[in-house]
């Protein structure tokens, strides 16, 4: 066995996961490799003491929801810039203003499972939706302004994490702004 080959296996040998009579014999007769081996043995002892403090169970409990929220945020970011009529099916007749986790339905906040089903089946997301059918005369630019206003003021879609709760959203104010074209 050549020295280079021995050295390439020396760490595994020092750690103990590699048993090799060839290396054992080589080390006995080759001083250079023996010195190398003694040095590596010492550093392996030091490295074996290196332990990482793992995050708490609390961290792990929140990990998946955080991943899903980020996925939702990226999806909503896409939607924000996809509000032009060409991208929104006319039959849908709803304006998407954000994705949120865990929102129940109400008069103002409508479950959107059906819509999201086309994008993220069974992902369990709810959205904040406004039905703009009553704003037939409202142009796309105004709707986009409304969306940006909501994103900016209420930090949608991170509303659950911020200082606002989804119930804080003053929909009447937004509707008035839409009517007045801001």
């Amino acid at each position: 066995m050549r020295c280079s080959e021995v050295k390439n296996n020396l760490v595994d040998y020092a750690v103990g996961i590699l048993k090799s009579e060839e290396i054992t014999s080589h080390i006995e007769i080759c001083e250079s490799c023996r010195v190398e081996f003694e040095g590596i043995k010492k550093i392996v002892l030091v490295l074996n003491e290196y332990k990482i403090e793992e995050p708490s169970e609390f961290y792990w409990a929140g990990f998946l929801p955080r991943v899903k929220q980020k996925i939702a945020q990226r999806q909503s970011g896409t939607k924000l810039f996809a509000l032009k009529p060409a991208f929104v099916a006319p039959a849908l007749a709803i304006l998407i203003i954000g994705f949120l986790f865990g929102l129940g339905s109400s008069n103002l906040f409508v479950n959107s499972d059906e819509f999201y089903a086309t994008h993220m089946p069974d992902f369990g997301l709810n959205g904040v939706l406004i039905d703009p059918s009553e704003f037939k005369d409202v142009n796309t630019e105004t709707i986009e302004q409304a969306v940006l206003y909501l994103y900016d003021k209420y930090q949608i879609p991170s509303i659950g994490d911020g200082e606002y709760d989804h119930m804080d959203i003053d929909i009447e104010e937004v509707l008035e702004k839409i009517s007045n074209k801001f």
Partner: protein
Amino acid sequence: MVNKTDIELVNDFKNGNISAFDEIVRRYQKKVYLLARRILSNHEDADDVAQEVFIKLFYSLNEFKGESNLFTWIYRITINECNSILRKRKIREFIPIDEIVNLLKFNETPEQEFINKEEKRLIEKAIEKLPPKQRAVFVMRFFENLDYEEISKILKKPVGTLKANYFHAVKKIQRFIKDEMQ
């Protein structure tokens, strides 16, 4: 769901069952985090990487053809994300190295716990000095106990190259610690 194989979960996901993704995250979250944590040496970066890995996985899982293990694929994404962080961010400096060395020289003092932390920081410092590829090989081999065949699939490098990388990585760590302690 927990009893399903990786490939079954991937197929479930492709068929629209998003909860299969949840199970994949739960199955690999700690492995991904720990790999990133050991490569990047701090929680914040490891947390960012771990989340990003699963977000990327979510968007790319439909393209997974099963030609390699899901595990290999996830680790490859993790290594790429770590390398991206290493390129973009300057890893924050820990306490001055002289202070660590001084503490190590008196490692029989009663403040053993504190000293162990400093020893840990010295090791992290040594690992941080490794070039990204050597660092990845070292962490996967030494701490994750992956065999060379697996690492070869993840990094797409021949086993011989990996063995040499591993040996040189350990030698550099050894040299760094020795130099700092003199």
